[in-house]
């Protein structure tokens, strides 16, 4: 029972982190209609910038400055890169972001090398917030939860309650009408792209000390972010949140409990073959949930695509 609570918290942290990445990606998707392959690369840039800044000015300045830098770079990419490519259609845009992802990874390796960076969280948060039957919850994790929830609430408020948010929402759905009403739609797009990448930057800043800061960090997280927004429904902020939390909890629980395939199969009435060593399904029978935990989201994505192609909260139906 205690462990369930601990796992709920751990899954929440993982899920919220994923949300910060997928929120930006899903916003950018609903704007451009194209997936930004370089999104996880901005997450990596956030971590590296924050590391560099934290050496000179400390963690907190890193948290403040690094996302801004990433956002400015993101906005620049939209203004001088994507906007030019946009007129040639979706495929060039897709290829552009893909190339950008490779470029950023090479650039990071060129500047910082291929090693792990000794990027650590602030000393002040280096204590155990509380412990549940021997399992300590580091204060840093609580801090991560607060930051991400804060960002979600802020984003939700801006998008739904403010004038700016309404113009953005309108511009995302009916760009031409909004333009005709006298709003600068390209500027809005640039802003959304900048904010989306800055969100990825924040995720990088706070995840870097926990998940490690190394050139492969974008690659490790990249694919799962796409899975998240596909499950949640492309373009839906709530969908991104629900899918992120779902993935966070599914993987955490699958890793924490050794559920064996044998038990599941026995449970649904299939009995274990007598001589398992010779059986051609031996590997299948001996599967355990921690082994397959990280592919469960992909299985979920396939199921969603089959039974609800628009995603959990998606509106688009082709």
């Amino acid at each position, binding site marked *: 029972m205690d462990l369930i609570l601990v796992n709920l918290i751990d899954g929440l942290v993982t899920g919220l982190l994923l949300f910060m990445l997928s929120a930006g990606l899903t916003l950018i998707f609903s704007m451009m209609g194209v997936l930004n392959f370089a999104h996880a690369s901005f997450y990596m840039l956030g971590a590296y910038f924050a590391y560099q800044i934290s050496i000179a000015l400390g963690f907190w300045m890193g948290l403040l400055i690094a996302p801004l830098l990433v956002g400015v770079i993101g906005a620049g990419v939209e203004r001088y890169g994507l906007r030019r490519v946009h007129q040639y259609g979706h495929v060039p845009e897709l290829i552009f972001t893909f190339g950008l992802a490779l470029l950023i990874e090479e650039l990071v390796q060129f500047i910082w090398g291929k090693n*792990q960076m000794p990027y650590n969280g602030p000393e002040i948060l280096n204590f155990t917030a509380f412990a549940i039957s021997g399992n300590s919850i580091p204060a840093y994790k609580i801090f991560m939860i607060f930051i991400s929830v804060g960002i979600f609430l802020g984003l939700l408020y801006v998008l739904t309650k403010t004038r700016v948010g309404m113009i953005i929402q309108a511009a995302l759905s009916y760009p031409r009408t909004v333009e005709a009403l006298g709003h600068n739609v390209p500027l809005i797009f640039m802003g959304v792209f900048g904010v989306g990448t800055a969100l990825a930057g924040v995720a990088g800043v706070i995840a870097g000390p926990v998940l490690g800061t190394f050139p492969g960090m974008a690659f490790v997280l990249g694919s799962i972010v796409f899975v998240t927004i596909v499950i949640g429904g492309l373009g839906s902020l709530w969908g991104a949140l629900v899918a992120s939390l779902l993935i966070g909890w599914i993987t955490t629980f699958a890793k924490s409990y050794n559920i064996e395939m044998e038990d599941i199969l026995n449970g649904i009435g299939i009995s274990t073959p007598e001589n398992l060593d010779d059986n051609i399904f031996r590997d299948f029978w001996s599967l355990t949930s921690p082994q397959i935990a990280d592919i469960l989201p992909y299985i979920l994505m396939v199921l969603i695509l089959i039974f609800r192609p628009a995603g959990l909260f998606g509106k688009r139906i082709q």
Partner: protein
Amino acid sequence: MKNITKLGAVSALSLIIGASAAFAEDIKVAFIDPLSGPFASTGTNGLHQFEFAADYMVNEKGGLLDGKKIEVVGFDNKISPKESLIQLQVAIDQGVRFVVQGNSSGVANALTEAIDKHNRRNPDSRVLFLNYAAVDPALTNDKCNFWHFRFDANSDIKMDALTDVIAADDEVKKIYVIGQDYSFGKAVSAAANSMLKAKRPDIEIVGDELHPIGKVKDFTPYSRKIVSSGADAVITGNWGADMLGLGRSIIENGFTGPIYTYYGAGSGMTAAFGDSGKGIIRLISEGQVNPPPTPEASAYYDAFSAKYPEGNIDQTRISNTIGMLAAAIEKAGTADDVVAVANALEGMEYESMWGGTLFMRPNDHQLIQDMHIAAHTNEGITYTFDSSDYGVLVESTVEMASKDSESSCEMKRP
């Protein structure tokens, strides 16, 4: 006039031919390991150490066989067995006779099989496989062949030494084994189980687990299980980003006992563990860096640090590999006939600058050497890793570990 032009042309031509002949005579060593992706740092650091060892130990001392130099060429295999076989073919086409590889036993298994096949079919362009870090025991047991030599201790030998040390520690009652889900991780787990059972039947293995290799983003759920299992010590064969991720997560979630690792140092890990890993991270490996074993080793390390200020010598076996290869080529008198070189390597005894004598066991091509258990600390460290204040300090040593261990290798000789 015409004659002079002719003479000039001929001499120029002969110079070019001579120069290219001298160039072609370089002994090429193909380094097939990940140079991009999540394990890029491990691979790149290995490449630097190989290049440096070749330059320092061979090329700057006049080369081998009247001036032939060893040239280490990097090939990026992206840690994929399939890609490795392509790179192997490219290397062979470029005239390479010696292949070194170490990261991932999965890759090593594919390479040793492919090289065996290649050598049988192409007696004119045979290659030797010098494995400097892939430690799946099968490579020198069931899957052994004449062309494969292992310069690292295999995981059974390491586990044998490690369990000797653990067995002597009466405070350890519960042990958790965790590793990456592939041949090497499974070998570590199997060896830990059988050897602990034999040496300390009272020790309980409270957890024995595999996780996907290079895919886990957050190790928290695993470390939760480790902490709540009440384990006194953890054994892991993880490496690269998986090692750092697991180690950090275990420590962060409140574990204070020793974590016995195969690869828990260097490549940025030592700096990243920093103070939090002190007294917790232990490393089982060959070769001693702290305290420096010999003056030669110190001179070697100083020269390496001068060239790569941010690099580490975290794989002393790399200089052993180059040293023994050079000695074997000198003894065989050729770098082209790899059978002669292999015969010279077999049974070779080599004084390592990192301390102790190395012995290449002829029956299975497994190098027998001293094994050390070292601790991650900042006290008594001469050579730190990752330009941090931390390094690994040898705590205990098992001499000529597993010298008489058995091998199921039945080697077919050409």
